[in-house]
C-alpha cells in the first residue's frame, strides 16, 4: 500500500485547470462534548480532482465537510482556500469562496420550480427575469451534461432530479469546490452512472469535487484520490489508481481491537426460531431497500447484522416486525413447543394481537420505541394494556414492572412517574430494553442499542443481551462497531446495498473480511 504525498504530479495537465490546492485543511479538530469527532486532520483537494473521503459511520467524514461549508466551526486548525487562509463561520462565508455542499437531505421548496429554487435567496434586481435564469441553467446543464427542466416543480421530480437541482444551485452561484455527502445513497444504479458522468465533466472543467461515501466500488470507479478517516483520525490518502478494495478496506477498518466483552457458549442444541426467505422491500421512492434477503436465526445465539448505514438493516428488522411492507418473500416464526407460523403477511397490529413473542428495540428510541412525554408506567403499559376486559386499562401491573426494571437495571430516575424523555440516553435505553425483555420474547431484535451510551451502560446492555441468549432467545443485533460485533455475536450477517453478502462465524471472521463484504456490492459481494 502506498501513501502518496501531496506533491504528486497531476495527470490532467492537458485540461485548462487552475493550479494548486482548492482546499487545504491543517490540523483541524472538532469536539462535541467529550466526543472527538475530528482529531487534527490534514487534508487537501486540488482543482480538477475528485477526492473521495472514505470511512465507516461515525468516522467524522460529514463533520469535517460541515466545517468546510460553514455549518460547524473548527475548535482548532486552519482552512486554506486557494492558498489563502480563510475563516468560514457560516454557509454565507462559504459561498463567496466558491464552496458548495450538497447534503443528503435536500433543502428545496416543493411548490417552486427548479429555476425558482435555484435563484431563491440570490441578490438581483426587483424584477426577476426567470427566462434569463432558465437560459443560464440550460447553458450550465449543456456544459456539464445535466438533464434538467428549469420549469418543472420540485414536487413533480424524482429524487435524482431533485439532487440535480441541488447541484445546479451550487453551480449557478459559481461554486467551483463541490462537496457531496453520500450522493448515491438515494440513487438507482443508472442514476448513479449519470451523476458520475456529470461529476467527471465538472472535474474536467477544473472544479474540485469532494465526495463522501462508504461504497468502495464507487470510490474506485469515480475518484482520483481517496482520503480515509477512521474514528475521527486521518489515516492517509492514496491515489485511486493504486488502490484496491482490499487495501482501502484495511485502511478503513484498521486492526482488530480486543474488547472485554463476554461471549458465552451457545446452549446445546440451537433451535430454529426465525427464518427469512427471499424477502424484498421497496421504499415509496421505488428504491430496493432489501434485496432477496434470506437467513435463519437460532435460539441461544446472537446474530449480528453488519453493514454501512442504510444497507437495509432498518428494513430487515422492520419487515420482521410488520412495519415495512414486503414486495415478496416469506418470514417463518418458530415458537417453542408450538407449530410454525408464517408471519410475513402480518402487520405490527396483527403481530401484537396474535401474541407473537417478537420484541424490537428500534434505533430511534424516543421517536419510535418510547413516548418521551409519558412516564415509565405508561411506556411499560403499551405491551400489556390489551390484557383483561374490554374497557378498563390495567395500570397496576405496568407500574410494578416499571419499579422492577428500575431496580434490576439500575435506572437512575426520580421515579416511575417521571417522563422518560427527561432521563439520560443510557437510562432511556435501559427502560426500552427492559420493557422489551420483560415480555419474555422468542426473538429479540435490537438496533444500535449502545449508540450514544457511555461505556458502563453499553456493557450493561451487552450483558442483558447475553442473559437473553442463555435463556434461549434468538437475538438479532444490528450494530456499527465491528469490534463489538466480533466480540459479542455468534454469527454475523453482512448487508450491502440491501443484499445479504454473507453470514460468517464471529469466532473466526476477521474485520477485513467483514469490511470487504460490507462495502462491495454486486459481483465482489457474491463471490
Amino acid at each position, binding site marked *: 500500500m502506498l501513501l502518496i504525498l501531496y506533491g504528486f504530479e497531476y495527470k490532467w495537465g492537458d485540461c485548462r485547470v487552475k493550479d494548486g490546492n482548492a482546499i487545504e485543511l491543517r490540523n483541524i479538530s472538532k469536539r462535541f462534548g467529550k466526543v472527538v469527532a475530528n482529531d487534527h486532520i490534514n487534508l487537501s483537494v486540488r482543482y480538477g480532482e475528485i477526492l473521495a473521503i472514505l470511512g465507516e459511520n461515525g468516522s467524522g467524514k460529514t463533520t469535517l465537510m460541515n466545517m468546510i461549508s460553514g455549518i460547524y466551526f473548527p475548535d482548532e486548525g486552519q482552512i486554506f482556500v486557494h492558498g489563502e487562509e480563510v475563516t468560514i463561520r457560516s454557509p454565507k462565508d462559504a459561498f463567496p469562496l466558491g464552496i458548495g455542499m450538497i447534503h443528503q437531505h435536500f433543502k428545496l421548496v416543493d411548490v417552486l420550480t427548479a429555476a425558482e429554487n435555484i435563484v431563491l435567496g440570490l441578490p438581483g434586481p426587483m424584477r426577476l427575469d426567470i427566462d434569463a435564469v432558465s437560459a443560464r441553467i440550460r447553458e450550465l446543464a449543456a456544459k456539464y451534461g445535466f438533464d434538467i427542466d428549469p420549469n418543472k416543480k420540485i414536487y413533480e421530480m424524482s429524487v435524482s432530479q431533485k439532487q440535480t437541482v441541488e447541484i445546479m444551485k451550487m453551480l449557478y452561484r459559481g461554486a467551483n469546490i463541490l462537496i457531496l455527502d453520500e450522493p448515491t445513497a438515494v440513487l438507482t444504479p443508472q442514476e448513479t452512472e449519470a451523476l458520475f458522468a456529470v461529476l467527471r465533466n465538472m472535474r474536467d472543467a477544473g472544479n474540485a469535487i469532494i465526495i463522501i461515501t462508504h461504497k468502495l466500488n464507487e470510490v474506485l470507479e469515480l475518484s482520483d484520490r481517496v482520503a480515509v478517516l477512521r474514528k475521527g483520525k486521518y489515516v492517509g490518502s492514496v491515489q485511486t489508481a493504486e488502490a484496491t478494495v482490499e487495501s482501502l478496506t484495511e485502511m478503513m477498518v484498521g486492526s482488530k481491537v480486543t474488547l472485554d466483552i463476554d461471549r458465552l457458549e451457545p446452549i446445546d442444541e440451537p433451535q430454529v426460531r426465525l427464518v427469512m426467505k427471499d424477502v424484498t422491500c421497496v421504499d415509496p421512492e421505488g428504491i430496493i431497500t432489501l434485496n432477496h434477503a434470506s437467513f435463519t436465526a437460532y435460539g441461544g445465539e446472537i446474530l449480528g447484522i453488519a453493514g454501512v448505514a442504510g444497507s437495509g438493516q432498518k428494513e430487515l428488522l422492520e419487515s420482521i416486525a410488520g412495519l415495512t411492507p414486503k414486495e415478496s418473500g416469506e418470514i417463518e416464526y418458530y415458537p417453542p413447543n408450538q407449530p410454525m407460523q408464517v408471519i410475513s403477511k402480518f402487520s*405490527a*397490529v396483527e*403481530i401484537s394481537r396474535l401474541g407473537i413473542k417478537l420484541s424490537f428495540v428500534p434505533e430511534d428510541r424516543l*421517536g419510535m420505541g418510547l413516548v418521551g412525554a409519558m412516564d415509565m408506567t405508561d411506556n411499560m403499559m403499551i405491551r400489556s394494556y390489551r390484557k383483561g376486559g374490554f*374497557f378498563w*386499562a390495567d395500570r397496576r401491573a405496568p407500574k410494578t414492572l416499571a419499579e422492577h426494571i428500575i431496580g434490576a437495571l439500575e435506572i437512575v430516575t426520580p421515579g416511575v412517574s417521571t417522563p422518560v424523555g427527561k432521563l439520560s440516553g443510557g437510562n432511556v435505553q435501559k427502560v426500552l430494553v427492559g420493557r422489551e425483555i420483560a415480555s419474555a420474547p422468542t426473538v429479540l431484535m435490537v438496533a444500535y442499542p449502545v449508540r450514544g451510551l457511555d461505556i458502563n451502560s453499553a456493557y450493561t446492555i451487552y450483558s442483558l443481551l447475553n442473559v437473553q441468549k442463555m435463556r434461549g432467545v434468538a437475538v438479532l443485533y444490528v450494530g456499527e462497531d465491528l469490534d463489538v460485533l466480533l466480540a459479542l455475536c455468534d454469527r454475523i450477517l453482512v448487508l450491502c446495498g440491501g443484499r445479504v453478502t454473507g453470514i460468517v462465524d464471529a469466532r473466526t471472521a476477521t474485520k477485513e473480511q467483514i469490511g470487504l463484504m460490507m462495502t462491495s456490492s454486486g459481483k465482489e459481494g457474491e463471490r
Partner: protein
Amino acid sequence: MSNNNHGVREPLFHISRRQDYSLWLAVFVRLAAILLALVVCGVVIVALTGLNPMEVYAGIIDGAVGSSRRLWVTIRDTLALLLVAVAITPAFKMRFWNIGGEGQVLIGATATAAVMIYLGNKVSAPVLFTLMIGASLLAGMVWGVIPALFKAGWNTNETLFTLMMNYVATQIVSFCIVFWENPVGSNSVGIINASTNAGWLPPLFGLTYGWNLVIVLAITVFIYVYLRYSKQGYEIAYVGQSVNTARYAGINVKTVIIRTMAISGALCGLAGFILVSGAGHTISTTLAGGRGFTAIVVAWLSKLNTFTMMIVSFLLTFMAKGAIQIASQFSLNENASEIITGIILFFVLGCEFFINYKVEFRHRHREG
C-alpha cells in the same frame, strides 16, 4: 457598575422553568391574576367611559346570576358550551385538530329538528326522544368521521377539512329552513311543536334544565374516565404523542383516528340535540353560535381536563352574559364589554407563564 469589564453583560433577567411545582403558588398566582385583571379593567372602564367600575362589575354579576331566571340561562349556556368542549376533547387529546365542532353541532341539531318536525306528534315520547338522540348522535358521528376517514386514508389536513365541513353544515341548515319555514315567508323555522311541546326535554326534579344538567355532567364524567382509565383512552393518548411509536407498538392508528372522531362527532351532535330539544326548540344557521370554536379555547385552557372545563366554560359564559347586561344597562357598545372579557382572559392565560416559569432578575452584586 463595572459589568462591561467582563465583556459579556448579564441580561436584566432570565427565565427558567420551575422545577418545584406547588399548589399554593398556582392558586396564589391565579387569584392575583384575576385581581390584577379587575384593577386594570377598572382603569380601562374609567378611562373609556367614566363609569364607576364597581357599578359595572355589579352589572356583570347581575346580568349573569342576578335572578333565578338569569342564573339558569347562564347554567344552560354553560352546559351547552361544556358539552361541546368535552365532546371535542378526545380528538384534541389525539392531536387531531378538529375545528369542525360547529358543523357537528349544527348537523346534530338539524337531525334532531327533523325528527321533531316529522315525527313529533306521531309517536310516543320515549320513542321520540330515543329517535331524536339517536339521530343527533348519528349525524354528528357522520360529520366527524368523514374528515377522519380522509385523514386516516390519505393523510389530508384535518384542520381545513373540518373547517370546510362547517360551511357545508350551515348550507344544509339553510336548505332545510326552506322546507321547515314556519310561518311561511319568515325565513325561519320558529318554535317547533309550540302547541304540543312534543320533543321538548321535560323538567327533571322540578328543574327546567334538569335533563341538560344530568346528560352533560354524565358525559363530562364519562369522558374523564374514558380518557384517563380506559384502554381506548390510552390508545388515543399514545397516537396523540407519537404516531410512529403507536405504529411500532401495534396500535391500529387508522382505527383509533376514525373511532375517536366518531365519538367526538357523535357527542357534538348530542350537543346539537341539547340545544334544540333542551333549550331553543328551534333551528337556525347560527344555532351553534360559535360554541364549536369557543369550546376549543375551553378545552385547551383546561389542559383537556374535563372537570376544569366546567369552571372555564362557566367563567366564559358568565362573562358573556354579564357583557350583554352592561351593554344595555350602561348603553355601552358590546365591544366595550368584550374588552373587559379580553383583559380578564389575558391575565388568566398570562399567569400560566408565571406558574410554569421562574423569572430571575440580575443579581445586584457589587464588586470590590
